[in-house]
């Protein structure tokens, strides 16, 4: 039949059947026109449509009956068995009760004649082989396969032990078995399945109708391995008919891999048992698969996460229309069938049982219980009140996927696990308190799951949740859920603090820990040893906040409480001793810090167990603090020892501990003249951290910063800047950059950019650092550092006004907070210099005087810094009429620099300033001699690019002019100003001063023309 024609017939037929009989006639007239053949065909089909009725069903039924009849046809016997009655017909075929005909006694058997799945290439040989395996299955709870063969009509059949029983689910509900009885029964089922697995037989079709319970309560599993007999040979081609048939099986108990048509293993039985357990305890199956299309049902099994059994027992007030038409058992009925109230049932499922079922139901078979035995064991452990195994996999399974990128969550969860595992100990120790609170580890575990889920973007509508948000969520949950259990609440809060600290959120950590201390303190007293860890962590919070004195106090308190506790754990005491050392080191109290590090080292060595890891930590800190005391050789020894231990511990594989040691060594080597060694160590540390850490890990960022900083010190700005920029890029991915380390990074980047003369970018970075540091802590030393750095940049780029304001702010902060400090002196000196640069010599004098006083007090008379500051002061005194004082200071400076350790360029500079002073005050002859010496020293010790040399030549030029050697002077002056313009820029104070010097020198000699020429340049 032509396709075109068939389409036309189809079209008319489908339209016609929508019409009433009276309207069909005119419709057919219209659509068929004069094509009589078409009309006849359609009319025939329409009448067949009316007559057909159930003819298809009848034809099909007759076919099935035919097959079944044939089974009996062979003389109502199959092999040696006499058929007694048909007891059922399942998806696979008919089941008969039969008796062995040739037997003296009536052995009743069940015979299954299989008449589906025949479309698959099932060979007689394979059938025989499988049958043999199944016949070997002997277990009191498995219906035995006795015999098998092919009927005369060629249908395979199996003879099995006949079981008179009831499906397990109905049995449990009818007898209203308790949860415990159901679980006992389930364990029996598992034992049987496990024994089959040991014989390498997988059931493949475990469901209540295959698991019968006899009148005397014996469990019997039917149809073991039969599904496999019906499925095509593994790896063989699947015929379409088979696929259709297999798809026709209900997916309710089928594992995802079975639905995908993948290889079926023992894990598939674990899954089906999970569904069974779900149903036995919660009265429902994990997925609602009725009333949906097959495709949707399969999608649910493949994709939807299985709910916790307990969660299906929550009563929903408003049932949807679908649920009304097909009512499910209410939680009340389900609970009643287990002799419980709904809420009590739900509670008994929450925790262990939920976990066990969900572990069995995992989509990926490798994440399920590794065997049915393990599943049964957990159920048994639950019944015996022992901890179940499933928790760690639950944690790691849920966790690994997203926690790999999520180190905070790792910290939180690890802490919780630590807590839950030690919780039983705490209960024993303080049983009276524990009883009051009725604390259950279960609740903690629930919370843990919730927190982990909170961080799972797919459960949060796809939005990426930040570490910070996750922590805040956790903190809120702890506050809300455990308000009735203050001790547990406080313990959890303490656990959470480490995570806040590792994020650098010291303030949040402090708030949380203070809450915890207040809560727990109210119950047990503020001096209770159980608070020692809390004080320890509070100290750590203050340490991170930069309040080292308070950190020290709290660490000392923690130490005292640890030592007073009944349970003196050496390692904890050692931990806090070590941290106390850190707090002292941060305050510059290096000798004391050294003492505590040594003590921590001893404690770790005394403690039992393998403490090498911690010994290495203490050694590292000790080496570090020795380096700070300029005892680099000694310190290096300890650090190398730490490094050796850590290398041994990791079998020479890269480890984070090795990276830490290398990093500390890198810092120590900064004291040595050869900075290259330091750069190498920092480089090694960085490459390990790049390898092992997530890109946003603080230690990795620190390493990048360290290496870049060494490059900076080596003046390798071109190498430092890309590293700083890399760190900046990594930071930019973080949701919150309000962190002291980020401020440091911007500060360092700014300085490196400044070194390369990229002033605009430098100003941007330095300002960013300043603003961030101000926001974090408005009066910290870092803020003053940033103010001075930014001011200096402005000063160097000739913006004296900006520089003066910033220095003034630095003086204000430092003068109040840390009066008399080195930074105080620096800020004062900077303020004076900016006044001088803007021509206000009078205003420059007081700050420069104060700066000199401060520095003198700090470092003494003949220190390089003192000389430097006196020179600065002398420069302005020289211009404000304090001629003698200026000259005295300058001569003293030159003298000190001649005999001291000062570098030659510095001596050159002092000489230049003295020559300048003398030239201005009519001592031209001596000025010329001194300036000549300055130029000679600088020519020998520095390069042509050095502004010091240009300045010296400028001063020499002016001295020569003053001595009347106009041409010689003019030449030197012109060249020096060109050079300064080139190096410093036309507007730099040095350049302007050089020009002003030339102008006044020529004016003094009456050479107005030359003076004007320089003024106008």
């Amino acid at each position, binding site marked *: 039949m032509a396709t075109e024609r068939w389409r036309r017939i189809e079209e008319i037929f489908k339209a016609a059947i929508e019409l009433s009989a009276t309207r069909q006639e005119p419709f057919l007239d219209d659509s068929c026109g004069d094509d009589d053949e078409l009309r006849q065909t359609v009319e025939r089909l329409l009448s067949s449509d009316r007559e057909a009725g159930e*003819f*298809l069903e009848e034809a099909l039924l*007759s*076919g099935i009956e*035919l*097959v079944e009849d*044939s089974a009996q046809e062979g003389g109502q016997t199959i092999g040696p068995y006499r058929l007694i009655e048909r007891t059922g017909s399942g998806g696979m075929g008919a089941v008969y009760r039969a008796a062995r005909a040739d037997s003296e006694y009536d052995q009743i058997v069940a015979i299954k004649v299989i*008449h589906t799945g025949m479309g698959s290439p099932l060979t007689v040989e394979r059938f025989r082989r499988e049958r043999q395996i199944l016949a070997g299955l002997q277990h009191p709870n498995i219906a035995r396969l006795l015999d098998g063969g092919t009927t005369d009509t060629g249908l395979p059949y199996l003879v099995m032990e006949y079981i008179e029983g009831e499906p397990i689910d109905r049995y449990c509900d009818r007898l209203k078995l308790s949860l415990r009885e159901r679980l006992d029964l389930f364990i029996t089922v598992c034992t049987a399945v496990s024994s089959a697995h040991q014989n390498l037989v997988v059931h493949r079709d475990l469901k209540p109708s295959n698991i019968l319970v006899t009148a005397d309560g014996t469990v019997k599993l039917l149809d073991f391995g039969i599904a496999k007999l019906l499925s095509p040979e593994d790896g063989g081609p699947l015929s379409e008919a088979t696929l259709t048939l297999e798809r026709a099986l209900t997916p309710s108990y089928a594992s995802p891999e079975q639905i995908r048509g993948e290889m079926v293993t023992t894990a598939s039985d674990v899954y089906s048992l999970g569904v069974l357990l779900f149903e036995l305890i919660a009265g429902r199956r994990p997925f609602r698969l009725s009333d949906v*299309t*097959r495709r949707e049902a399969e999608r649910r099994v493949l994709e939807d996460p299985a709910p916790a059994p307990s969660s299906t027992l929550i009563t929903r007030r408003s049932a949807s229309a679908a649920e009304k038409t097909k009512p499910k058992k209410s939680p009340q009925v389900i609970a009643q069938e287990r002799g419980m109230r709904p809420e009590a049932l739900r509670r008994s499922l929450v925790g262990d049982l939920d976990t066990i079922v969900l572990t069995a139901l995992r989509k990926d078979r490798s994440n399920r219980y590794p065997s049915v035995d393990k599943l049964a064991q957990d159920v048994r452990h639950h019944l015996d009140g022992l901890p179940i195994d499933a928790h760690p996999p639950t944690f790691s399974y849920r966790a690994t996927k997203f926690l790999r990128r999520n180190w905070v969550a790792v910290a939180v969860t690890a802490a919780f696990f630590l807590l839950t595992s030690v919780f039983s100990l705490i209960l024993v120790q303080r049983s009276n308190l524990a009883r009051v609170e009725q604390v259950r580890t279960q609740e903690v575990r629930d919370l843990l799951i919730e927190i982990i889920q909170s961080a799972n973007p797919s459960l949060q509508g796809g939005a990426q949740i930040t570490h910070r948000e996750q922590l805040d969520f956790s903190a809120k949950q702890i506050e809300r859920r455990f308000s009735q259990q203050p001790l547990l609440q406080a313990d959890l809060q303490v656990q959470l603090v480490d995570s806040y600290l590792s994020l650098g959120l010291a303030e949040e950590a402090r708030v949380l820990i203070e809450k915890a201390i207040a809560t727990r303190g109210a119950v047990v007293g503020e001096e209770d040893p159980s608070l020692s860890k809390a004080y320890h962590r509070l100290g750590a919070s203050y340490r991170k906040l930069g309040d080292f004195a308070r950190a020290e106090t709290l660490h000392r308190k923690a130490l005292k409480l640890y030592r007073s506790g009944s349970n003196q754990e050496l390692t904890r005491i050692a931990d806090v001793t070590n941290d106390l050392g850190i707090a002292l080191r941060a305050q510059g109290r290096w000798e004391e810090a050294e003492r505590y590090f040594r003590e921590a080292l001893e404690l770790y060595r005394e403690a039992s167990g393998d403490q090498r890891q911690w010994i290495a930590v203490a050694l590292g800190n000790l080496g570090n603090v020795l380096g700070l005391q300029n005892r680099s050789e000694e310190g290096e020894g300890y650090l190398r020892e730490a490094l050796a231990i850590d290398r041994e511990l990791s079998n020479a594989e890269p480890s984070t501990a090795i990276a830490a040691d290398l990093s500390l060594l890198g810092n120590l080597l900064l004291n040595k003249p050869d900075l290259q060694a330091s750069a190498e160590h920092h480089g090694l540390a960085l490459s390990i951290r790049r390898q092992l850490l997530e890109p946003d890990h603080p230690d990795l960022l620190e390493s990048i910063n360290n290496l870049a900083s060494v490059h900076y010190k080596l003046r390798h700005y071109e190498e430092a800047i890309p590293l700083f920029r890399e760190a900046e890029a990594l930071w930019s991915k973080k949701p919150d950059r309000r962190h002291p380390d980020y401020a440091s990074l911007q500060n360092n980047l700014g300085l490196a950019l400044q070194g390369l003369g990229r002033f605009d970018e430098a100003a941007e970075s330095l300002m960013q650092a300043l603003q961030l540091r101000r926001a974090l802590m408005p009066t910290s030393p870092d803020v003053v550092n940033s103010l001075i750095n930014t001011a200096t940049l402005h000063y160097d780029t000739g913006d004296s006004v900006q520089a003066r304001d910033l220095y003034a702010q630095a003086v204000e902060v430092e003068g109040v907070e840390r009066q008399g400090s080195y930074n105080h002196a620096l800020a004062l000196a900077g303020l004076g210099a900016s006044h001088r640069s803007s021509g206000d010599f009078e205003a420059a004098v007081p700050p420069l005087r104060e700066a000199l006083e401060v520095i003198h007090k700090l470092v003494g008379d003949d220190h390089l810094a003192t000389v430097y500051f006196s020179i600065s002061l002398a420069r302005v005194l020289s211009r404000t009429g304090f001629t003698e004082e200026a000259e005295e200071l300058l001569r003293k400076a030159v003298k000190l620099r001649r005999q001291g350790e000062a570098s030659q360029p510095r001596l050159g500079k002092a000489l230049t300033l003295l020559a300048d002073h003398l030239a201005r005050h009519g001592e031209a002859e001596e000025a010329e001699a001194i300036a000549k010496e300055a130029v000679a020293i600088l020519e020998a010790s520095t390069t042509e690019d050095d502004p010091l040399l240009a300045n010296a030549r400028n001063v020499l030029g002016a001295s020569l002019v003053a001595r009347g050697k106009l041409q010689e002077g003019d030449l030197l002056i012109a060249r020096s100003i060109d050079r300064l313009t080139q190096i410093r820029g036309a507007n730099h104070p040095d350049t302007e001063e050089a020009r002003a010097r030339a102008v006044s020198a020529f004016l003094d000699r009456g050479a107005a023309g030359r003076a004007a020429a320089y003024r106008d340049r």
Partner: protein
Amino acid sequence: MRRVLVDHARRVQAAKRGGRAVKVHLEVIGEVAERKATDVLELDDALMALEKIDQRKNKIIELRYFGGLTIEETASFLEVSTATVIADARLARAWLFNQMKRSERAE
């Protein structure tokens, strides 16, 4: 499933036509069986004819009646609407019925 039934029916029919001597009580069963076999074989022929002119409608009958799928399942399996399945099945059923009636007349 369809193949199983059809093959089986063929074997039954072949045996009957062979005129094997059978006991009376089995003969009764045998007669019924023969009629059933005829039905199945006729349906099979009709379905093969249908497959030639319209594969999809043939598939729908197989899935619905031999595979035991519901209308919704058949629709989702073939990725067509349920309305299409219903209308197609109705036309196919009418066509098959007509076809089998015709073969009846022809005999």
